[in-house]
């Protein structure tokens, strides 16, 4: 490292690392980059909602029930133009959607992350330990996957009741199995490789072998599953909230906003349900487009 000239050596093309190759392959698909772009915009809008939203939809001082059910583009009593209309309480829908995105994204990404940690750890353990541990964990996975997610989540929320934390818990319980199965599959292949044998010969602690040697090599499929599962988690949270079992009314996610507009839709006031649904749809589709392409990029079998 003391040799500074080495760094400045005239090596014009950048060294190709797996990460750089991955980035350039991902960028090769216009659809995937579009998905990434749209998703980034959505995340930024959600993050900046308190500063860029026309009003704070939770602040009762800012909303006026006289502005209720205004059509998109109408100007309310407080002088704000409601580009996406207002709901029955007089809340600006655009602001409601921006704040709702925060909750939908937090719940979706948070539950996917926790489920990933739990599932990946159990999957690694199952593959590495084998035997009885493997059997027990995989039986649990089978059991979990044999029930539709919506039903399992419904059952858990029927026990726990409403609330953001409870929704996250329910989503983690119904999702961890997907990660566990994925990681176990690739870990079973990787653990027979020489580098694991070498690590074992060096008498490294099991935890180190699992997380520093085995896990990084099982990451590609995990990233694919993780991306798709974030989209699924967001959709599932919206569905549960629509059914009245998800987030509480005080913290409306997109699903709850859509549910609020349900009764007004039959009288032709479509915007209360329509626009939150569009936001939800765009979010899910942008994530799925990225995930779909990631699957192609990270799948070695499709490489020529």
């Amino acid at each position, binding site marked *: 490292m003391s040799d500074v000239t080495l760094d400045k050596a005239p090596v014009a093309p950048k060294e190709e690392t797996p990460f750089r190759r991955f980035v350039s392959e991902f960028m090769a698909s216009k659809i995937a980059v579009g998905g990434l772009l749209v998703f980034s915009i959505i995340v930024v809008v959600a993050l900046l909602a308190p500063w860029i939203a026309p009003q704070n939809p939770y602040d009762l001082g800012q909303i006026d029930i006289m502005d209720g059910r205004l059509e998109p583009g109408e100007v309310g009593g407080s002088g704000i133009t409601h580009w996406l209309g207002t709901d029955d309480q007089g809340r600006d829908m655009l602001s409601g959607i921006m704040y709702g995105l925060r909750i939908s994204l937090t719940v979706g990404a948070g539950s996917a992350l926790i489920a990933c940690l739990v599932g990946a750890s159990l999957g690694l353990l199952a593959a590495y330990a084998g035997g009885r541990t493997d059997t027990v964990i995989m039986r649990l996975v089978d059991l979990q996957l044999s029930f539709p997610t919506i039903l399992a989540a419904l*059952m858990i929320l029927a026990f726990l009741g409403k609330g953001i934390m409870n929704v996250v818990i329910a989503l983690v319980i119904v999702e961890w199995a997907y990660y566990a199965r994925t990681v176990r599959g690739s870990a079973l292949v990787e653990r027979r490789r020489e580098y694991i044998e070498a690590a074992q010969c060096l008498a490294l602690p099991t935890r180190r072998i699992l997380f520093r040697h085995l896990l990084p090599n099982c990451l590609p499929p995990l990233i694919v599953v993780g991306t798709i599962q974030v989209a699924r988690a967001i959709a599932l949270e919206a569905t549960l909230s629509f059914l009245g079992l998800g987030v509480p009314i005080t913290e409306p996610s997109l699903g709850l906003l859509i549910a609020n507009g349900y009764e007004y839709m039959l009288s032709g006031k479509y915007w209360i349900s329509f626009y939150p649904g569009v936001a939800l749809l765009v979010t899910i589709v942008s994530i799925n487009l990225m995930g779909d392409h990631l699957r192609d990029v990270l799948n070695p079998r499709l490489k020529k």
Partner: protein
Amino acid sequence: MTVYLLRRLFQSLLVLVAMSVIVFVGVYAVGDPVEILISPDADQFERERAIRALGLDLPLWQQYLVFVKNALQGDLGRSFVFSEPALQLILQKMPATLELAFGAMFISILIGLPLGLYAGLKPDSPGAKVIMAGSILGFSLPTFWVGLMLIMVFAVQLGWLPSTGRGETLWGWSFLTANGLSHLLLPAINLALFKISLVIRLTRSGVRETMLMDYVKFARAKGLSPARVTYVHVFKNILIPVVTVVGLELGSTIAFSVVTESVFAWPGMGKLIIDSINVLDRPVIVAYLMIIVLMFIVINLIVDILYSVLDPRVRLEGQA
């Protein structure tokens, strides 16, 4: 084979028992039905009489034993709200849900098969690309929102189809009357959306794999017309796996009908369970979950047995 079957049967039984404990304890923990069902004006005496009548004064494990004993005799408790046997309540709603689920599966095959066949036969055509993009959309769209949009367009704006309810029924079935059928159409399409995407993808990959088979090449070499090769040799061979998978999806279709039924106010089991959860009608929740769990265990058992019949390797593993 018999050993394997017995072992699977025993495992299923264990799962059923475990689920019954989980469901019972879980539902018991949801809040206090006494608060909801007994009027706050009731005096002490009335309260206690009501609690005793509902069996809520016994310890939890005793309530569970009573529940199991009654469940084995087909009695899953009485609904707190309707004061009718919970099982009967659910069975009354079952035809509506089954009708919806089978309608959705029928639609998914009717629409999905031709589209998947086209996408598989001409994978590079613009039509196939549109179909495949559409199937991604079908997987992405949240069912409940699509349901709302279907109501908005076809019921509110165009006024072609009714938005909610089952309409006229004949012998308890909607699809036997024209009015009932018009009520069934929108919810069935809504529920079918996800399955259509599934059928398209299955059919497409099936066709693409089958086209490379030797018997297809041979049929072509023999000079058969492309139509005959497609519709007799290829189609027949992909039909079986596609129909099998769709059949196996029956369980999840029934589970997802919870959402569709809530959107279209379709009076089936799914709407009943959501309403029951909202008013904490404990016996109905427990009965519904037990019926669904039982249904899934039976479906999974049939799948496993079918696999072991078809694939000897599974059988050998079971004996080892």
